[in-house]
């Protein structure tokens, strides 16, 4: 697996981004003049207290939301300028998501869940099957391919979620509290897996977490507080 990068350019560049939400007449400023660069191949942990805007930033990078101001450039492409339709196609091509609550389809088996993003590609059924097998093997779940989510443990479900996130070999893997719903042991297994994906396969990963234990596995940690980033924890 490989990442498309432009030499000298960071894979992710967030520049002067502001995000304002409206609640009735009230304006809530979540992110203010935020700058972030993530080079290809980095495993970045994004920490901060609840409501600090971690997930909002992750959503802007993942093309699930648009900034009120500023630019988001991923692999040289201005994501904030894409239409909804273009964004959907762009996400399918470039982004793998891993969610805190796994977000698997309960009516589909593990392998069918992993296959989902491949339905948006032009791969044949046989090619899709091969990709799914590879992804499930990478997360150590080949033997659970035919199982439905309800018969899997939380850790196993999250591994299926990660397999779904990497099956298209995306430019960027975005993880939103991937261990937030797991016990320490299962959480460690997930972190081992993410670390291996980063170190052995060169995956660029941005992980939102509350947990210092999780962020310790990342190659760099940044802290978000009151809409601003810093390289040191908030006191």
């Amino acid at each position, binding site marked *: 697996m490989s990442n498309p990068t432009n030499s000298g350019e960071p894979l992710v560049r967030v520049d002067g981004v502001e995000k304002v939400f409206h609640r009735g007449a009230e304006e809530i400023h979540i992110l203010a003049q935020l700058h972030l660069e993530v080079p290809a191949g980095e495993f970045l942990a994004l920490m901060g207290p609840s409501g600090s805007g971690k997930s909002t930033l992750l959503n802007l990078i993942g093309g699930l939301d648009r900034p009120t101001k500023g630019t988001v450039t991923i692999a040289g492409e201005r994501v904030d300028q894409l239409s909804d339709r273009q964004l*959907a*196609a762009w*996400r399918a091509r470039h982004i793998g998501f891993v*969610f805190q*609550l796994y*977000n698997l389809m309960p009516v589909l088996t593990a392998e069918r869940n992993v296959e989902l*993003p491949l339905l948006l590609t*032009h791969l044949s059924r046989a090619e899709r099957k091969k990709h799914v097998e590879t992804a499930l093997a990478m997360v150590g779940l080949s033997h659970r391919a035919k199982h439905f989510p309800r018969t899997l443990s939380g850790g196993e479900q999250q591994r299926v979620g990660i397999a779904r996130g990497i099956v298209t070999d995306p430019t960027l893997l975005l993880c939103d509290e991937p261990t937030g719903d797991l016990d320490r042991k299962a959480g460690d297994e997930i972190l081992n897996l993410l670390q291996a994906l980063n170190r052995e396969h060169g995956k660029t990963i941005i992980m939102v977490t509350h947990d210092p234990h999780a962020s310790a596995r990342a190659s760099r940690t940044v802290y978000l507080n009151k809409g601003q980033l810093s390289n040191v924890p908030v006191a």
Partner: protein
Amino acid sequence: MAGLLNWFAQIAAITRFGLMSIPQRRGAVAATVFGIAGVVAVLVGVLSIAAGFRRAMAASGAADSVIVLRSGSDSEMVSGFGREETRVIADTPGVARNAQGPLASAELFVIINLAKRSTGTDANVPLRGVEAAALPVRDNVKFTDGRMFTWGRNEVVVGAGAAHEFAGLEVGSTIKVGRESWPVVGIFSAGGGIAESEIWSDAKVLQAAYNRGDSFQSVYARLNSAGAFQEFKDALTSNPRLNVKVVRQSDYYAEQSQTITRLITTLGVLIAGLMAVGAVFGALNTMYSAVAARTREIATLRALGFGGGAVVVALMIESLVLALMGGAVGAVAAYVAFDNFRAATMNWQSFSQVTFAFAVTPQLLVQGVVWATVIGLLGGLLPAIRAARLPIAAALREL
């Protein structure tokens, strides 16, 4: 082309999840399906009454059959001819003939009271006096029980519809005609036509029983061909000895059926329309709850790159599938319950009862399915649009 295939694949995938999750919300789904089934069953059921009535009337006249009435008469009730006039009509060019003579039957039309089997209340039943040519003029008359009455005797034969609908019309029983009691000697069918609603006797004996002298009310005739109608009509209307109105039997009965079929159709569409409004809300409710229950799933698919348009189309398909299931259930129920169900109603032109069978025709079934489709599309549209507009980031965290 590849983009389109990809789009169809997205729709197929989302539709599949929706349909696979139906067992988890079977209560709401069943309510919707049966709600729509009810609309279709009522619509098809009520319209089958109109279709059956129209069919009974339409089955009453072959293309080469005509009825001659006094000019200005809308029905046999208000028409009248003397013997001489009926002879002139029978001898007019264009009338078909057999070995016994012209195929023209001068007929008398009176109304008697009989009790309905269903309610026991009296109803007007047409009693028709016919001549010997009546059978070849209506070549679809067949005896299902007993025999034809003997000419010159006080006997009657009864149409199958009348025998079914009114009490005391079995072969061997007697009916009161004027001051006398006449035996029923036969039951006949007439291809489901209006003659099946009537009782027939010899015109001559009926004239005597009702003190009608030698008068008639109509002449039923068979022409050489359907194309001979104009020649026949022109010959009659230009004859200075006659003052007549000539109509094809099919047109005559079609006109008579118009008022009732229009009334029933309007009523049926109105009732079904009101029910359909309720069914649309039922479908809306089901699809809104389907979207609410799957908010996180839909948001996840959107995050993975599935398009909003594909979500809309897939949810519309799901709603349509439920509606068509309802439509099919309703259509089958209507067919089983109503097709061939026999009833009688008043023909307001002749002030007498017409018996007929409800007809659940293929066109009605198609109409029912079309209604179900419209309900499904209306019920699915708004929830589908809501699903596609869900803010993905927030919906991903829904529990």
